[in-house]
């Protein structure tokens, strides 16, 4: 879509990317499997899942991204539920070995620090997908034991600030995958007691003492307790709370008053009832299965609700930005887009989630902040600042979401989200620790996504912007000035030296040059854009003849506006992927 294209929004007022979502697809397939059902078109879901596998044997959240343990578990488990053999398990096992960390845990990708999400996914892939024992369970036990807080709950990693029901679930299930019924490495009564304490007076469970009850927390708590050989203190109250989440039109809501059914609520409610040992009657089962099957996209996997009203924050932000690029005097930005983005700042977490009802994510938060700023709107900046502050890991970096290990793009997105919201990044983060994490990603030729990773142009360009925002102006400028030498012969920038240019790398390089006040080769930019413009959209690569969708259009149109404006260069928004 170009700024001049007619705007078609979804029934929920937002927009969505064309592809299915991996986490939704896993949750849908798993729920149907638990109910003894299948998707209406299982072969389409198998094709969607297998298309995420990389040459290293692991799977990625989206095609073209590097493998991570999160995506690998979800793809492999869902393929298993669909009765499809896992392609190339030996190669997957080799890749998985590279995610083990020296401290005994597992990381999402090789080179990252360990976090409890990754530990959970990796141990389950070992045990349930590959059918192999988890190597060195003693070292794993030591790592897991160090996640326990004095009050008994588990945190995201050793030294993390807050315990969380989800961390308790991931830890308990990881230990069971590694050691079966052997006594856990924690003070188990204290952990069990802390988890039971998260049941509130209404019967529901919450992630921690200060949050509100939700179905996700209920499922994670009851399953964690079960793995620890325990149960909620008042299971009947939990049963009543779950029954109250059932909606008259079919399906369940995530929390009281939310009023909408989605794939995750079905997953959480079915999982909780199954763990409680409660049979689900035939009518109830058929109702849930119908609701879940209705979330499948034609020829693909699943989204979180009916596709016609399944907006996501990245696509909605992209469309909002595209409307802001329209010539003055044309149609303005529809209010529904602003409402959708502001509504994505949900009450139970202070960042913006990718899809309603999901946990907040840092890149989505940045896109929402920048999109709203582009049309003169904003989020609640105090809540945003609080969320970013709480997201910082003990190594100084930030991960995609709460508790996830640090990487460079998340760290940059967190710092830039603060700046874009008008908050001082140096005052809202532990800035020296951010710089230390950044230094750990440094390489003689630039910066990599995680410590030890090969440098990429995008990571290098992003690192320069963070250095600048945290007051390291000289090093930022030196790094930024070096980008010009990395321009390829075709006019844009590629991920590695002399690599084929792509839209994402080019956007990052040009954005950094603009932010740092460095010259931009506009002739080269125009030559590159001519190669990736396809009809009214943009492709990510000059080798593709297919428009890549709203996110590519958003980046491409901003670059095109810049390339067309020698006299009054347009501002590029701080957007990372």
């Amino acid at each position, binding site marked *: 879509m170009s700024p001049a294209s007619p705007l078609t929004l979804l029934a929920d007022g937002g927009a969505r990317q064309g592809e299915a979502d991996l986490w939704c697809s896993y949750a849908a397939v798993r729920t149907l499997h638990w109910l003894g059902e299948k998707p209406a078109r299982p072969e389409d879901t198998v094709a969607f899942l297998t298309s995420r596998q990389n040459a290293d044997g692991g799977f990625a959240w989206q095609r073209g991204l590097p493998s991570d343990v999160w995506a690998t578990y979800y793809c492999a488990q869902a393929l298993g539920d669909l009765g499809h053999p896992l392609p190339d398990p030996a190669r997957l096992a080799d890749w998985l070995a590279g995610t083990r960390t020296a401290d005994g845990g597992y990381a999402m990708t090789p080179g990252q620090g360990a976090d409890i999400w990754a530990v959970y996914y990796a141990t389950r892939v070992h045990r349930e997908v590959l059918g192999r024992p988890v190597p060195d369970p003693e070292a794993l036990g030591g790592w897991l034991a160090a996640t326990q807080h004095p009050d008994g709950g588990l945190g995201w990693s050793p030294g993390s600030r807050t315990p969380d029901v989800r961390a308790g679930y991931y830890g308990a299930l990881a230990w069971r995958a590694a050691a079966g019924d052997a006594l856990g490495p924690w003070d188990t009564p204290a952990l069990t007691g802390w988890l039971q304490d998260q049941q509130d007076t209404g019967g529901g469970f919450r992630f921690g003492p200060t949050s509100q009850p939700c179905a996700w927390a209920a499922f994670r708590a009851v399953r964690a307790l079960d793995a620890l050989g325990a149960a909620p203190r008042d299971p009947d109250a939990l049963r009543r709370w779950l029954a109250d989440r059932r909606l008259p039109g079919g399906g369940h809501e995530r929390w009281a008053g939310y009023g909408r059914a989605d794939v995750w609520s079905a997953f959480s409610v079915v999982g909780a009832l199954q763990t409680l040992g409660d049979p689900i009657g035939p009518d109830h089962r058929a109702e849930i299965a119908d609701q879940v099957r209705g979330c499948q996209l034609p020829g693909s996997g699943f989204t979180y609700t009916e596709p016609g009203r399944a907006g996501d924050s990245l696509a909605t932000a992209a469309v909002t930005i595209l409307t802001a690029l329209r010539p003055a005097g044309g149609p303005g930005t529809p209010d529904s887009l602003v409402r959708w983005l502001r509504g994505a700042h949900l009450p139970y977490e202070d960042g913006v989630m990718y899809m309603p009802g999901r946990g907040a994510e840092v890149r989505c938060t940045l896109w929402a902040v920048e999109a709203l700023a582009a049309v003169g709107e904003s989020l609640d900046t105090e809540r945003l600042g609080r969320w970013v502050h709480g997201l910082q890991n003990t190594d100084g970096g930030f991960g995609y979401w709460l508790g996830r290990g640090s990487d460079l793009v998340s760290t940059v997105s967190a710092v830039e989200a603060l700046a874009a919201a008008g908050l001082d990044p140096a005052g809202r983060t532990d800035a020296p620790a951010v710089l230390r994490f950044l230094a750990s990603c440094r390489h003689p030729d630039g910066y990599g996504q995680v410590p030890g990773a090969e440098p990429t142009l995008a990571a290098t360009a992003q690192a320069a912007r963070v250095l600048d925002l945290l007051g390291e102006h000289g090093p930022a400028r030196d790094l930024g000035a070096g980008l010009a030498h990395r321009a390829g012969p*075709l006019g844009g920038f590629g991920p590695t030296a*002399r690599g084929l240019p792509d839209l994402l790398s080019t956007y990052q390089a040009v954005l950094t040059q603009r932010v740092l006040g460095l010259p931009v080769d506009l002739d080269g930019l125009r*030559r590159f854009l001519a190669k990736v413009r396809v009809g009214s959209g943009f492709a990510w690569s000059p*080798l593709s003849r297919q428009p890549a969708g709203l996110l590519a259009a958003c980046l491409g149109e901003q670059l095109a506006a810049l390339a067309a404006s020698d006299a009054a260069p347009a501002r590029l928004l701080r957007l990372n992927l």
Partner: protein
Amino acid sequence: MNATPATAAPLRDRLREALATLLGHPLAAADDEVSLAEIVPERYDSLGVLDAVGLVEKEFGVPVDLVVDDLRSTFFSVATIAALIERKQRDAAVLGLLP
């Protein structure tokens, strides 16, 4: 390969000289029809072809599409590259796109 129009000689001379500088290897007119990968194998690999595409775009002002223009045949030799430039310049003239 097609016979080269006589009017193309200055363009081809310019191109040959620019490619020789880019590839760091002298190129003779007698070798215009010979594969560049054969003449300069250490430089004219897939990345060398992209360098040549960039050179053609900058020096001759014609856009090259990496898919539609089938680089394996159009960037085969000095003669085939020159033919591509001529065709694109003719098309641009017909469409009124030349400066």
